């Protein structure tokens, strides 16, 4: 999911808001050059390289193991499109670290979105829950970019259709701020303060042929 501003026209949205990260600075292992919007219009600025993403995911896998007491009863549900391969990669890393097998699946929240009527109709993606379902489990939703929080809200509603998890947590590769709902992530790959005029583009080998996280300022590849 490339994440341009939600509800594109954004009528009557209050001015600057408070830019900055929602979660405290657990910045990733790749501090990288500050994403201060490059002045020249139409530039793509790489914030995380493929190697950086690998390190970030390894750290997140460790954090998941730490916070869930060894991954007991954990189900990773990726939000399509790019949350799904991220969930698989996290499960692979957890297996490599502790030999624990986590449940992996996907959850498409589209039918529960509150902004459907603002855009052209969206195609639906696959929802695929691991055997054993989610009742009484610790479900970790996995997405590439956390922005307004609306996708996560829809995913929480979608989840309720399938049962009642004991705990629901959220893991994101990038938190770019600008939340519109009281939602925060439990595991953050990288906090990346952005302006609304910028777009964060996540590229993954499984979906795009290469790994990278970029900030596109206005005019670049949009």
């Amino acid at each position, binding site marked *: 999911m490339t994440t341009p501003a939600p509800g594109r026209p954004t009528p009557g949205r209050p001015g600057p808001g408070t830019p900055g990260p929602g979660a405290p600075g657990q910045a990733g292992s790749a501090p990288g050059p500050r994403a201060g919007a490059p002045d020249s219009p139409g530039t793509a600025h790489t914030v995380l390289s493929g190697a950086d993403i690998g390190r970030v995911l390894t750290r997140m896998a460790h954090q998941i193991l730490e916070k869930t007491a060894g991954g007991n009863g954990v189900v990773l549900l990726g939000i399509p499109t790019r949350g799904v391969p991220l969930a698989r990669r996290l499960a692979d890393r957890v297996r490599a670290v502790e030999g624990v097998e986590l449940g992996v699946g996907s959850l*498409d929240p589209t*039918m*529960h979105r509150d902004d*459907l*009527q*603002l*855009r*052209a*109709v*969206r*195609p*639906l993606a*696959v*929802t695929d829950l691991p055997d054993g379902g989610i009742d009484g489990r610790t479900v970790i939703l996995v997405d590439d970019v956390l922005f307004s929080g609306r996708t996560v809200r829809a995913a929480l*509603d979608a989840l*309720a*259709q*399938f*049962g009642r998890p004991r705990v629901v947590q959220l893991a994101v590769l990038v938190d770019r701020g600008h939340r519109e709902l009281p939602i925060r992530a439990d595991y953050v790959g990288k906090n990346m303060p952005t302006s609304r005029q910028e777009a964060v583009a996540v590229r993954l080998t499984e979906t795009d042929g290469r790994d990278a996280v970029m900030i596109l300022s206005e005019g670049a590849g949009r």
Partner: protein
Amino acid sequence: MMRHLLSTQDLGRDDALLVLDTAEYMATVAGRSVKKLPTLRGRTVVNLFFEDSTRTRTSFELAAKRLSADVINFSVRGSSVSKGESLKDTAQTLEAMGADAVVCRHPASGAPHRLAAWVRGSVLNAGDGIHEHPTQALLDAFTIRRRLGRVEGLSVTIVGDVLHSRVARSNVWLLSTLGASVTVVAPPTLVPVGVEQWPVAVSYDLDAVLPTSDVVMMLRVQRERMTAAFFPTEREYSRRYGLDADRLAAMPPSALVMHPGPMVRGMEIASDVADSTRSTVVEQVANGVSVRMAVLYLLLGGTREVP
């Protein structure tokens, strides 16, 4: 996606596949503990039926309700329509009530097209005269794809009262768009004029085409639409064009038997064939709900303004 669903002739290959793929998602909803999605909350769907049809109306109603739309059933009996109100007046009434979609069945071919010009919402053709019944064709294609894994390259034989069948017309267009080769089989009196313009082969001999058919779709003989003698006796029709156990045995082992319902057992289809594992009749009903949910979502789920 377009604004109305009036005919399968309007559906391009990509649109048709989008409906089938979306229906695949909708089919999973039926297996959940909560079978309802909030997607069309606040939208109003009117079922406007000028002809009796319990199964199609119920299917549309269930589909709309599973998507949380409000459903109003507007049936002819007991309404002003039977007092002489015109289609246009009815349309204006629905418009004033703020219908977001009108599901229309009408005995006159083309009535939904007229309706589409008069209302702001989406119009879904649920069968107009002897013209089209697009959601039936979509659910048939969906059923074929689920059972046989594809539609492209298959040989589909449509048998029976092709002349009066909107199901046949919609299927001919849709299945050929999706890459199937379609043969219609009927007594010469029940083959419509102009069939040579259709993308089909025509045969009068059922036994000759059965061995090469991947799907055999039986049509009901629509006595209520017959104004002349199209065949000598029902027994003769049944002997030449009915699907019985012997004919089923002549079909390839994986071939499907389909029927849009309601079936006339003993006429176009023998009872043991209708109940065999090769028959998809019951699946077609279940798939109908998924396909209609998909169509309602695709027509009503996004913004009204076409980007």
